[in-house]
């Protein structure tokens, strides 16, 4: 992996992000209504709307708004002000990002720790009851949308007074670690379930492919212990594809976060985005979209790097 390759990938990511922001700006401009109308609601009078539009610079054409937005970022590193909340976008999005990251990373780490052994186990016990149960579970996992999982979890695990978990909300880990832990369980489980199912299925299929490969056969025919065959020969080779799947799944994760945060009152990016969408808060929509797309693109790049580290055959030039 050369520096040139990295730089080219990063440039490609930037290009992608530019396309994304431009598209978002252009399509938001053709929407009916705007932030001023949404802020004033049904009590709006035409002169109040006009006054607010002027105050928010919504009276300018969209390309001028785009220009001032872009130049704000490039010249001053300033992502503008939220139209609805009158706060700097960086402040609105920044804290939300941190909270979302806590949730997403927790879910992802849990998924990685559980899914890989689970998938490997299913592959090893291929065709047995264990495989069938894991398979059934993973199929069910992929067929339950987050909002259904979340709702069912709430009904069964967060019923007031009887459920073991809080029904939602957020406690910062630096304020109260125990509180944070109990609050993150249900959203993380909801987010993780689809990924868990998906990743374990992928690991299973990769692992079964690796297990039937010539070199695993060769390792067995060398008389190596089954433990060594699996841990040293089979597992490392099925990890690289698993990493690729996990990085692709970050896309799902970023989508799932929108629903999960809404349901579990987790003050993260998803909630900010939904709120911004409802209120036509363009600078916030832009920043969140940009951030999510950026995270996704960077995670793909990171996964390529990790794959290259895991598999000596992979080299990028």
């Amino acid at each position, binding site marked *: 992996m050369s520096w040139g390759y990295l730089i080219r990938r990063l440039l*490609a*990511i930037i*290009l*992608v*992000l530019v*396309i*994304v922001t431009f598209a*978002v700006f252009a*399509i*938001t401009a*053709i*929407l*009916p209504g705007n932030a001023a109308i949404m802020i004033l609601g049904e009590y709006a009078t035409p002169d109040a709307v006009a006054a607010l539009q002027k105050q928010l610079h919504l009276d300018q054409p969209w390309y001028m708004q785009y220009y001032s937005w872009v130049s704000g970022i490039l010249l001053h590193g300033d992502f503008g002000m939220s139209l609805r909340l009158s706060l700097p976008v960086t402040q609105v999005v920044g804290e939300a990002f941190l909270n979302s990251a806590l949730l997403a990373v927790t879910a992802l780490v849990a998924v990685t720790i559980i899914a890989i052994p689970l998938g490997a186990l299913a592959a090893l016990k291929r065709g047995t009851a264990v495989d*069938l149960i894991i398979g059934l579970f993973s*199929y*069910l996992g*992929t*067929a*339950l*949308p*987050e*909002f*259904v999982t979340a*709702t*069912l979890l*709430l*009904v069964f695990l967060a*019923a*007031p007074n009887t459920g073991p978990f809080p029904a939602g909300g957020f406690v910062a880990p630096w304020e109260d670690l125990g509180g944070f832990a109990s609050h993150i369980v249900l959203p993380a489980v909801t987010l993780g379930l689809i990924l868990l199912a998906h990743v374990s299925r992928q690991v299973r299929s990769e692992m079964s492919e690796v297990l039937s490969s010539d070199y695993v056969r060769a390792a067995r025919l060398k008389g190596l212990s089954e433990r060594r065959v699996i841990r040293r020969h089979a597992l490392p080779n099925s990890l690289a594809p698993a990493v690729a799947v996990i990085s692709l799944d970050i*896309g*799902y*994760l*970023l*989508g*799932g976060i*929108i*629903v999960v945060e*809404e349901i579990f009152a987790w003050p993260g990016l998803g909630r900010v*985005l*939904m709120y911004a*969408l409802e209120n036509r808060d363009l600078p916030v*929509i832009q920043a969140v*979209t940009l951030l*999510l*797309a950026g995270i*996704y*693109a960077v995670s793909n790049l990171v996964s390529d790097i990790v794959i290259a580290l895991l598999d000596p055959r992979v080299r990028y030039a």
Partner: protein
Amino acid sequence: MRKFFSSPTAVVGTLLLAIVLFAALFGPLVAPFDPQEFHPVARLQGPSATYWLGTDQFGRDLLSRVLNGAPATVAFGLFATAIGVGIGSVIGVIAGVSGGWVDSTIMRILDGLLAVPDLLFTLLIVTVLGGGMEHALLAVAIAFTPGMARIARSAVLSVRTRDYVRAAVARGESGFYIVTFEVLPNALSPIVVESTIRVSFAIMIGATLGFLGLGAQPPSTEWGLMVAEARQFMFRNPWCVAIPGLSIAMAALGFNLFGDALRDALDPRRSH
């Protein structure tokens, strides 16, 4: 065919799919009640002899509502996927067949669109279009397009380097003949498999949009919306969220399993 049904995945998938399709085709006819009819005295009831799956907050029969929601839900999945697959395949085939700068331009744009997570992309489009079932359908279709284009392109590319295509090129066949008779028939199966699986995603995204208030709107019996509407009452009657929720899972699972089984059956590498 017999081989297809020898795998449990195929059997369960086909069975679930059959149930869901039956509900989609005949659900409204076999429903015991009018799905919109209020029964004010029987609100939020559990399953009973009269209301087999219970009732919702207006005393509407859940079974009838679920059965009536089936056509909308399934049609949503099928049409959204069909449109997405249609447009995506055309783009992908054009990219794959043309190669060169056409291919790279198309691919760069697709990469850009693929960088936006599916649900986020759909949300943005739905917001632009203004919500509602038709718009949600269009949004899912658009969100599917780049991914399908990618799959179609790679299917075409993998076929394009096959020797029978080269043989056609060497014979001096026209581009049209090669694409229509040599490339497409062979590139079709991965597209078909992917489409089947995507129907389940479409159903799930559609339901999620309904849940978020951006898809189907009351008094529709779309399943995601049913969950959303009943959520307030979930502690009083879990059935009214569980029934539509599990219906979604069943439909998604059916298409998913069927698609997987189809892949196994069509993939020569996996067949014995």
